[in-house]
């Protein structure tokens, strides 16, 4: 063995920014995460050139999966054009030479902050969700070593207690995002701060979901066709946001997840949260040939 066999020619960056040893480590963790759906696998979480808490976890997974023919979409709260989403997308295409897109149906790799697109994802697509807090037990157990034991014992009773307290105090479950969900009947995960609207999209989905928390250094995954059940009481069914009667003021579309825009007179306007989905509808109404994919929801109800 010679030194020259063990080294390679100098270059400023590896393809996809992360070096091979960082990628190998994330690959190993992703495989374990897929093998035990919903279990949080610790990983090293390397430095990337954005601050922790701005999507470093998702970015590391995206960079590991990156290849030159990947088509990358980045979402920030449903929007493709926010500063965070644009910056990440620009960075990924710069270090990976990949194609950028806003169109959910064309993307092969979708990194998202806190929303799942309205159009159904296919078997060949990968959804990478950025996670600020991966630990569903944190509100009831701040000590993460104890929380790990609770996961080991499937000791999740206190999570129902939180939901019960919300019911008693407010008459309904107030948990709006990060709704704790049982994966494959064994591990409770937080599905990242997606709204309640998006959680049923993970249940027995066609696509692979990888969730990654950069600051907290945890990767977990939901493989295709895996059960993801929000924690509910038998007599209090799971409810998504009542958005079926809201119409988007830009596109006129009804029955999807909306952003509320408070107006000066105290009223509200609504617009589609999934920005490119709205753009497609507007273009289609203007007579352009736009194909809109099948959606998870129809008329504000989960179509299943």
């Amino acid at each position, binding site marked *: *063995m010679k030194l020259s066999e063990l080294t*390679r020619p100098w*270059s*400023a*960056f*590896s*393809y*996809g920014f992360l070096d*091979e*040893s960082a*990628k*190998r*480590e994330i*690959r*190993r*963790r*992703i*495989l*374990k*995460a*897929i*093998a*035990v*759906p919903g*279990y949080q*696998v*610790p990983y090293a979480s390397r430095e990337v050139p954005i601050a922790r808490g701005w999507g470093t976890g998702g970015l590391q997974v995206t960079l*590991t*999966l*990156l*290849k*030159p023919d990947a088509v990358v979409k980045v979402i920030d709260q449903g929007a493709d054009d926010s500063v965070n989403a644009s910056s990440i997308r620009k960075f990924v295409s*710069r*270090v*990976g*030479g990949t194609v950028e897109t806003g169109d959910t149906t064309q993307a092969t790799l979708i990194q998202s902050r806190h929303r799942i697109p309205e159009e159904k994802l296919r*078997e060949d697509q990968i959804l990478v969700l950025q996670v600020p807090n991966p630990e569903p037990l944190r509100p009831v157990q701040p000590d993460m070593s104890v929380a*790990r*034991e609770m*996961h*080991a*014992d499937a000791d999740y009773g206190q999570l129902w207690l939180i939901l019960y307290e919300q019911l008693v105090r407010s008459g309904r479950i107030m948990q709006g995002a990060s709704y704790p969900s049982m994966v*494959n009947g*064994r*591990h409770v995960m937080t599905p990242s701060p997606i709204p309640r609207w998006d959680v049923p999209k993970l249940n027995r989905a066609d696509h*692979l979901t990888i969730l990654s928390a950069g600051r907290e250094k945890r990767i977990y*995954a939901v*493989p*295709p*066709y*895996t*059960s993801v059940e929000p924690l509910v009481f038998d007599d209090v069914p799971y409810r998504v946001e009542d958005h079926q009667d809201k119409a988007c003021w830009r596109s006129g579309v009804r029955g999807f997840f909306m952003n509320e825009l408070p107006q000066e007179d105290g009223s509200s306007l609504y617009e589609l949260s999934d920005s490119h989905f709205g753009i497609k509808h507007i273009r289609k109404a203007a007579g352009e040939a736009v194909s809109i994919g099948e959606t998870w929801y129809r008329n504000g109800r989960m179509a299943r």
Partner: protein
Amino acid sequence: MSLELLPTAAESRTNAAFEELMWALARPGLIRRLPLAGFAALAESLIDRECSFHVRHDAALAERLAETGARAVSLADADYVFAPAGSPEDVTALAGLRVGTLSYPDEAATLFAPAHFGQEPAGRGPRLRLSGPGIREAITLQAGGVDPSFWPMRESAIRYPLGFDLYLVDGDGLIGIPRSTKVEVL
């Protein structure tokens, strides 16, 4: 300073091999096609000095893996095990695979075993019915080169979420069977 926009040949190879490893585990029982045949290409995308490995009956592969800086250890301690499961003796040895702990189920071993997925009737092995995460309903599969006693051994080793993850490799064909998959021998 210019950015390297294209991956090197080695980077493309390891990325493609990993993608097949990932989809094989995400969609158990479906045959994936590797960019290069054999264990070495798989090992290259995963294994380095942070890992331990164990190889049975393949000195060349063991030497190759040792070059990555990974530690050669006994089967019971190894993260990655490359071993045949074709005879009852092989299967008995594999009963010692690490299955992780309830707190850290990811500390379990990953087993890479040679098999053949061909259609020739001789030695095709029992018919298996797979169900679980990643499988829409159920999938039936026949894998030759794996001793029938392997499947009961796997079932007794796995107490989900404890258990080892399995890859069957036939040349450039790859099937993943994670511990979450229920395997019934028909």
